[in-house]
């Protein structure tokens, strides 16, 4: 090793980038070369000073908060489908939610001709983006049903849908095309499922599955009650679930 080569290797060794063979070669060289030995020492001194004296600038807490706010405003509006509704850390502020709602709503109304279907999807998206998914949180139908019945002029069925893979997580009230409606909230894996249930004939029911912006709307009816089930769960799974909901409750 000559002094020219040593210059490069001194830095590589100091920076932890040299292998054992290189380190050994440098050690051999500096033993006999006072110039390179002093260069190595000078670099060590400089690095010690740099590390001791150079401030590491800490991010202000306000920046952290601002970034989080901005990120949460950006993300939900862009990606309503597949959003992990629960445990997502909530959404920052009513402004973001309202904005998301306006954007999604505008697209929906432009595309959807059927008011009730559009309203169901809008209600679903609004509830999830605004983080107002559940007004009464319970997996117990005997808690959800009285809560809803007390606020409506009808008493909605609240099936637990056991064994379907869907879990009842709560309920809330919505308006569909001017009529108050009971909304049962179910969870399927990471998806949220809204089941709107109203007395039969409140609205004209769609003939089959409709899909708006990636959300499927599945109708079902047992003659007394009409259901509209809305989610981004795949259509066939959702159809099977809708049939379960509209089927008479097994006797207990």
């Amino acid at each position, binding site marked *: 090793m000559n002094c020219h080569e040593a*210059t*490069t290797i001194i*830095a*590589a060794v100091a*920076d*932890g*980038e040299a292998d054992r063979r290189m380190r050994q070669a440098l050690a051999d060289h500096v033993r006999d070369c006072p110039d390179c030995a002093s260069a190595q020492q*000078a*670099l060590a001194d*400089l*690095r010690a*000073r*740099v*590390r001791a*004296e*150079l*401030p*590491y*600038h*800490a*991010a*202000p807490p306000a*920046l*952290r908060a*601002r*970034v*989080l706010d*901005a*990120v*949460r405003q*950006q*993300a*939900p*509006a*862009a*990606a309503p*489908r*597949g*959003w*992990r509704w629960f445990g*997502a*850390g909530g959404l920052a502020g009513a402004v973001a939610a309202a904005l998301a709602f306006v954007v999604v709503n505008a697209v929906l109304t432009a595309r959807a001709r059927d008011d009730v279907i559009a309203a169901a999807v809008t209600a679903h998206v609004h509830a999830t983006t605004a983080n107002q998914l559940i007004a009464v949180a319970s997996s117990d139908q005997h808690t959800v049903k009285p809560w809803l019945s007390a606020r409506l002029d009808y008493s909605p069925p609240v099936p637990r849908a056991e064994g379907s893979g869907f879990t009842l997580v709560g309920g809330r009230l919505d308006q569909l095309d001017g009529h108050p409606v009971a909304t049962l909230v179910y969870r399927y894996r990471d998806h949220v499922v809204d089941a709107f249930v109203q007395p039969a004939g409140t609205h004209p029911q769609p003939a089959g599955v409709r899909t708006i912006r990636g959300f499927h709307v599945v109708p079902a009816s047992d003659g007394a009650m009409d259901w509209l089930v809305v989610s981004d769960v795949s259509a066939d799974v959702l159809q099977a679930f809708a049939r379960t909901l509209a089927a008479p409750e097994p006797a207990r």
Partner: protein
Amino acid sequence: MTGRHPPFPPVNAHRRFESLVMPHLGAGYNLARWLARDAHDAEDVVQEACMRALRYIGSLEGADARPWFLTIVRRTFYDWLQRNRPAEALDGARLDALVDPGDDPERLLLRQETAVALADAVGTLPLPYREVLVLRELEELSYKEIARVAAIPIGTVMSRLARARALLQRSPLLQAVREPSAGMHG
């Protein structure tokens, strides 16, 4: 159309952002602060970088989050520089194009008053040198990571790092600190 410039953050972007990028916000700010040399400007750069990171979060492999984010912060800083301090951006570009940087940076240092802290000496290093030094000594990135962040070959990382250190060693600022009586006014 969505390849190079995704218009929106991908699905689950904010969740991934919070778990993968937020832990490195401090590193991003430190780099931006050293490059911009101003706390307020550094905040602007970091905030913009975060929005970019959110859009591109799909391209991030978990293990590389810090160099990945620093790459975006650096890129954002240079774009910001172009918009806000075009003269400084031009200096950096000119230096970048030189095969041999010559003595200009040294003269730059010599013009400084003596007896300022080492931090100030680093602050006066031309950007291409300052960034590799900060990435190496403060962020403790490897040559390979620095090469990726600064988009230069490893050989260039090594030569710029050597240049940065040589400039600091030869700077009168260090001499002044070693012999405090020489330039201090009390």
